[in-house]
């Protein structure tokens, strides 16, 4: 094995490849994250259609593969084979560039997302600032797409979304600052913007920030949770692509692969903002109760969760396999579904190997928390009507912004309460 691999492994370093300064390992991590996120987007695509369908008393995709499992692949093939249309009169350079910008912005933020204490491509000193900054680049792509299409619906969609995203970034930023402020509550008094640092601060303070200074942390989290739905243009804030008003908003004129890049970017952005929320308020990669339930017994118990999850998935798959129609027409699908369950069992068995078990722990908890958020996204979409543009702006500027400022100030006061108390004490005793 070449030296740069063994060195990194032997050292058992507690840093990310970016900090370790190894381009090779950084590349490996980048490929892993890129592949993982793409896979997650494919799974999310299938899950969203199935979950939404079951919420709406229908079945969703059922034809392509058992329970429509191969539907995302069929869709991908369809989209790739479709003609790439550039409308007449469109600014073709900007038109072709726009989806790429959205994609790059959507995926760049994964540079700093910590899936575990060392499972990140790199850890930046300005991690959270970088994430907010780069994810705000996505709006550029939307604006460019809307303008370059040379069509009215995309233009209105782009105007809406740029106004919407810029507005909600303000509230989002305030909520983030209040969480960053909480990281500075240590003896040294210095906070951090680093994503890994924020999670470690939560570990050090023995609480997730959502429960810190209850209800302040919760309100900040709530502001962020609302703003992040608006940032990703999802229901009920999906005005830029409101299909009943603007047909498809900024991507009305796009087709085939370029359209799918927009979708990929949107889902990637959904995952990335969810991971910001998780890192800032929900303890990042930490398992529940890392301080309270300490010790080897608890460690072992919690480390069994990944394998149990996959066993559960396998059980669900086998149950569905048994319920498949017995008609010979469905034989291949039944075998396929059974094989799928087999794969789950295999993964679960691999996850039981002690070294793997300990290695994937952090990633597992992080992904599990992301899954909760993604489910919420789907749930919102099934439940809520769409906001109107002026109402959306009102919620952003008149509700979330004052609330954010209030929470920020209250957090500051709570953080300095002993100092303030001392000051008042001294005033009284003068």
């Amino acid at each position, binding site marked *: 094995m070449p030296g740069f691999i063994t060195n990194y492994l032997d050292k058992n370093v507690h840093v990310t490849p970016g900090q370790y300064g190894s381009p090779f390992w950084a590349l490996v991590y980048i490929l892993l994250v890129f592949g993982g996120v793409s896979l997650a987007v494919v799974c999310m695509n299938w899950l969203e259609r199935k979950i*939404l369908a079951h*919420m*709406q*008393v*229908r079945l969703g995709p059922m034809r392509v593969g058992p329970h429509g499992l191969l539907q995302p692949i069929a869709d991908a093939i369809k989209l790739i084979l479709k003609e790439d249309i550039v409308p007449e009169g469109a600014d073709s350079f900007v038109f072709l560039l726009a989806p790429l910008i959205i994609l790059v912005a959507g995926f760049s933020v994964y540079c700093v997302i910590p899936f575990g204490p060392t499972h990140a491509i790199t850890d930046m000193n300005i991690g959270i600032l970088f994430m907010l900054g780069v994810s705000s680049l996505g709006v550029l792509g939307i604006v460019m797409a809307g303008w370059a299409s040379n069509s*009215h*619906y995309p*233009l*209105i969609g782009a*105007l*809406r979304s740029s106004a919407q995203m810029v507005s909600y970034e303000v509230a989002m930023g305030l909520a983030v600052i209040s969480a960053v402020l909480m990281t500075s509550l240590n003896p040294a008094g210095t906070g951090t913007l680093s994503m890994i640092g924020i999670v470690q601060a939560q570990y050090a303070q023995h609480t997730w920030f959502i429960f810190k200074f209850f209800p302040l942390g919760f309100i900040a989290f709530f502001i962020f949770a609302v703003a992040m739905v608006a940032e990703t243009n999802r*229901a*009920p804030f*999906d*005005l830029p692509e*409101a*299909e*009943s*008003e*603007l*047909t498809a908003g900024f991507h009305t004129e796009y087709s085939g692969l370029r359209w799918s890049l927009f979708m990929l970017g949107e889902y990637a952005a959904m995952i990335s903002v969810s991971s910001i929320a998780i890192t800032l308020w929900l303890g990042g990669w930490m398992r529940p109760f890392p301080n309270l339930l300490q010790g080897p017994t608890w460690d072992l118990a919690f480390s069994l969760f990944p394998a149990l999850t996959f066993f559960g998935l396998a059980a669900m798959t086998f149950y569905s396999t048994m319920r498949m129609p017995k008609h010979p027409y469905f034989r291949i699908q039944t075998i396929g579904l059974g094989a799928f369950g087999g794969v789950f069992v295999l993964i679960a068995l691999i996850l039981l190997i002690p070294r793997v078990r300990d290695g994937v722990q952090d990633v597992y908890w992080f992904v599990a928390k992301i899954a909760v958020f993604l489910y919420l996204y789907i749930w919102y*979409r*099934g*439940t*809520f*009507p*769409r*906001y*109107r*543009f*002026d*109402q959306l702006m009102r919620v952003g500027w008149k509700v979330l912004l004052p609330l954010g400022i209030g929470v920020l100030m209250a957090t500051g006061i709570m953080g300095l309460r002993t100092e303030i108390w001392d000051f008042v004490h001294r005033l009284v005793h003068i």
Partner: protein
Amino acid sequence: MTDPNSSVSHLELEESKKTFLDANELVINMGPQHPATHGVLRVILRLDGEKVMGLECVIGYLHRGVEKIAEHRTYTMFNPYVDRMDYVAAVSNGLGYCEAVEKLLNIEAPPRANYIRVILTELNRLASHQLWLGTHALDIGAMTPLFYTFRDREEILKIFEKYCGARLTTHAFRIGGCQYETYEGFEKDVKKFLTFVAPKIDEYEELLTTNRIWVERTKKVGTISAKDCIALGVTGPVLRASGVKWDLRKAQPYAAYKQFDFEIPTGQNGDTYDRYLVRMAEMRQSLRIIQQAVDAIPEGPIMAKVSKVMKPPVGEIYHSIEAPKGELGYFIVSDGSTQPYRIRVRPPSFVNLQALDLMCRGQLVADVIAVIGTLDIVLGEVDR
């Protein structure tokens, strides 16, 4: 569509008042291929940013010349054509036509036929309102109610199918009564449906009525006063939501409606939310009427004595009924032959659509969608 002399000013009039600031006015062509125009309605929107400065409806994309066809068909042959106008409430269309011709022939349908007519028409009203609710909610962004309402509408269509073999364009009634006797277990099916659907209506209300976003999207949107409604000839739930207690089932009772006890739900503000509430209440009232009709359905013949070749006396007649969307009227001129000299239909959707410009002016683009949805238009009926 709009009358230049009325208070509803015409788009051209605004042209002269244009200033430098209006240079960025955006003209958007919504439809005829658009997901939220309920078919092939084309709306030319004039926008200032997101605000609607005015709009013009372009209709006729679904024009089939139904009224002209009537002049070359006998009275009986024309009966199935009326189903193709408001295809989501085909039973009501048929009822209106049959009653108009019966009035012209001076005959009356037997009581049992009238009861069957009421049951089917009210079931159809329910189906029409369910379809309206689903699409209206979908336009405003709530996806889920659409699937709930379609699931429950299916049960109504099943009853229709069992009764006359067709689901949508039913052709259920004949001039002089009904063609078919009810099938065995008809009453049982209807009663089963009533107990099935009552909690489902609560379910729709649970999803929407108190939903904050829904209320914000519909309250004070597309408001129209009772005066404007009457001036424009708007009828049906839109008129009742503006506070006018006018329902032809009570005002000029036809079929067997005199025998039933039901309320006319009305609103006060005439906005989209009130229209929503009025239609929801109407669904419940329909259930009440159906329940009473099924309980008291008399025995007897279902067809009056009608000659095979209908030759109504020379004359003209106007008869209107309360269709799910408003007043549906038939004006028939007879020259004494087997074919009508002229038939003119007064479709509620066509007349209600006139109010669109008035209701949308000064609102936002998103409200246009909500208002089109709340008017509950069916383009087959608008264009005929």
